[in-house]
């Protein structure tokens, strides 16, 4: 019997679990697998396309009183992020940034992406610094199929940044093939590999006078801050990482520091546990059943946090005949009317696709409501992507909304 069981191991679930564990509760995180954190940039996006994210959020909360940010409230947003930053600080992986001004960080295509907080390993890439007129080098490896310096540099140049591209020579290693970002991150933690890399970068700096060097986010898994510091010293220029396609090394680091923190607080994590049904007594969730070898496993807790995500996370699934359902507890969902309204004709339509706002409608305490507005469970809270009425990817608040609601559930 746990005090709290959190279903889902993404950012919102981990924050809720850490919050409960900190209060001395016995906490289990039960998840099907690794969460969306592994696919993300490793930054903390609060709200895109506004100068001042916090002011933008306040505005959003007024316009959309059911938006997750409105439900969590400004205090939870600030506290939750402060907690993540404190965890990062303690783990030697600090985040920098501000609630009131978005950073603009280069993507692996050379677009400038707004984000509120980024790991220290990325911070030197902020466009305001890059536009100081001093040359920037974008460097990668031909062997890495997820990072192409020439197009990044060309797009940055078109946005007023003096960027040039270079391909580095892969330092000698025992590996012969398959240089994925994760493999390279492991190699970067080997001193000899890193020394060779540093020498190459130094040579470029001597030749081209670069003030900053952008590299793919492969600079170490566990000791990234040290790796970046070491390379900066060797190269004689500031280094910044640029997030790559999933699986993202920076996303893995973020997950890792949260997992470490939860375990340190005595919480438990059970992966491979796919929750598929619930047992209730009136409006109390008594137990859930997770898929296991030969028979289900029954889990009991006093309170529950559902953090299974939306369609991407797997918390919401659509059937061929056009129905959407919540996968773990079979909760009622708020969905667009009919399949015809699911999609916009253009993939990159500015407002995204209505189907991706499907989720669970909740009360002010994040507890699930049915279509009539009646409380479904008094001891369940919904956090993150499983919540209805927002599109975290297109609004640019993937991490912010997850942290705010997760932290709110951890405190209430």
């Amino acid at each position, binding site marked *: 019997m746990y005090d709290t069981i959190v279903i889902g191991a993404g950012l919102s679930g981990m924050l809720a679990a850490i919050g409960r564990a900190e209060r001395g509760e016995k906490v289990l995180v039960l998840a099907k697998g690794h969460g*969306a954190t592994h696919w993300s940039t490793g930054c903390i996006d609060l709200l895109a396309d506004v100068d001042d994210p916090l002011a933008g959020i306040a505005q959003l909360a007024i316009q959309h009183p059911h938006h997750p940010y409105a439900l969590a409230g400004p205090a939870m947003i600030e506290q939750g992020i402060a907690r993540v930053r404190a965890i990062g600080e303690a783990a030697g992986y600090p985040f920098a940034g501000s609630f009131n001004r978005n950073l603009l960080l280069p993507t692996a295509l050379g677009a400038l992406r707004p984000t509120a907080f980024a790991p220290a390993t990325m911070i030197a890439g902020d466009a305001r610094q890059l536009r100081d007129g001093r040359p920037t080098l974008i460097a990668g490896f031909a062997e890495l199929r997820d990072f192409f310096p020439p197009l990044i540099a060309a797009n940055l140049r078109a946005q007023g940044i003096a960027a040039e591209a270079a391909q580095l020579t892969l330092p000698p290693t025992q590996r012969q093939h398959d240089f994925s970002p994760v493999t390279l991150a492991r190699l970067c933690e080997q001193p000899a590999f890193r020394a060779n890399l540093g020498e190459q970068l130094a040579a470029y700096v001597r030749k081209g006078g670069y003030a900053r060097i952008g590299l793919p986010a492969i600079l170490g898994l566990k000791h990234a801050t040290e790796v970046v510091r070491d390379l900066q010293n060797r190269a004689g220029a500031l280094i910044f990482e640029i997030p790559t396609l*999933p699986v993202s090394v920076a996303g893995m680091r973020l997950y890792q520091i949260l997992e470490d923190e939860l375990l340190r607080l005595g919480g438990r994590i059970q992966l491979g546990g796919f929750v598929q049904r619930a047992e209730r007594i009136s409006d109390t969730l008594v137990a859930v059943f997770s898929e296991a070898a030969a028979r289900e496993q029954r889990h009991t807790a006093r309170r529950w946090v559902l953090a299974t995500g939306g369609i991407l996370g797997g918390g919401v699934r659509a059937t061929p005949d056009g129905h959407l359902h919540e996968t773990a507890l079979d909760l009622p969902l708020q969905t667009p009317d009919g399949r015809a309204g699911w999609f916009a004709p253009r993939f990159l339509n500015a407002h995204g696709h209505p189907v991706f706002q499907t989720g669970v409608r909740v009360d002010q305490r994040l507890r699930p409501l049915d279509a009539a507005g009646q409380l479904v469970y008094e001891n369940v809270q919904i956090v993150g992507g499983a919540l209805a009425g927002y599109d975290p990817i297109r609004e640019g608040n993937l991490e912010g909304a997850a942290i705010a609601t997760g932290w709110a559930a951890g405190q209430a």
Partner: protein
Amino acid sequence: MDHIELSLTQSLDHCIKCNICTSACPVAAVTDVFPGPKYVGPQAQRFRHAAQPVPDASVDYCSGCRVCNQVCPTGVRIAELNARARAQIVAERGMPLRNRIIARSGLVGRLSSGPHAPLVNFTLNFAPARWIIERVMGIHRHAPLPKASTYTFRRWFKRRKPATNGRRPQVVYFHGCSTNYYEPHVGKAAIAVLEHLGFEVIVPPQRCCGLPLLSNGDFPAAQSHHEYNVAQLLPYARAGIPIVGTSTSCTLTLKEEAPELLGLHGDDIRAVAAGTYDIFEFLRDLHQQGRLRTDFRPIERELPYHPPCQLRAHRIGRPVLDVLGLIPGLRLRESRAECCGIAGTYGLKREKYQIAMDVGKPLFDFVRASGQDLALCDSETCRWQISGATGVATRHPIEILAEAYGLSV
């Protein structure tokens, strides 16, 4: 191939190519001869055709640890797809002699245990003999081989005087090959604990669960073992008598591996699967029902504990932590290493020994760093691997439980 079996293949449809499995795979992390679970699993599967030649062999470097299944956010049965693909290679190209031998743990155990065990053990400890075995058979000379026992568990069980005081609830014990031939003390601890809790323990005839055969791709032989075991266990399962085992791999095989990989889904197979429990899973259930005795003697120790891959594949959490956590004074430090590397018979093979040692390194470091002279692990081959690599003694957690109950084994 029936329709349920098709659903295993169908699970490849869930793959969204995100590579989370590859980033977590302990084998892909240490070698580039293995291109990773997504590549050899759901990705390669779309290019395999039962009636055409097998196009790829790198899937043989999958150790079967199932870390991929565990982290996959979409529910692809990657490890099972890989096991199937390996069986197709074996069916097409045949099985090396080495794999034939190590896959038959029952036979090997029967030949090596008994009064002549010291001689066998001496030979297997003798470097030139191991060198010859490596050259001739491809079993790495440093690979951890268990010490054969001078007596078998079954022989001990048959000769002992069972505790009988009135009618007791019954439980079936599935000992597996390792307990029978190499570590009868694990079985003795299990019997002692179960009897202490008021059960009458039945040990029906049994064969190797077939897991080494499955992981080496000999599906026909595995099937005959499984069918034999099901026939022996079925009457108990039908009577509602739980079947418990101390080997997490044997119990996993009875529960899921054999039925799924072999496509056996009859009622009898299902009944035995549904009636089988890892011993700590069983004890945890007892505790939840308020039926577990908690008259423990305190054990003031902090011990490293490694939950083996085979246990994690049960998808039942950490029953050892739940149950041993009840013992006053005992603190278990859970290893977060993915795998010890041995993966049953994988790490014995000459070409895979170094990979296995590299895979296990984080675990070995963890055990050494604990500074303790004892580590706990539920799986026999993992225990041998940990001890072989670190020199630290290892025990099954049931032995600690027996000790906490004050039972002499």
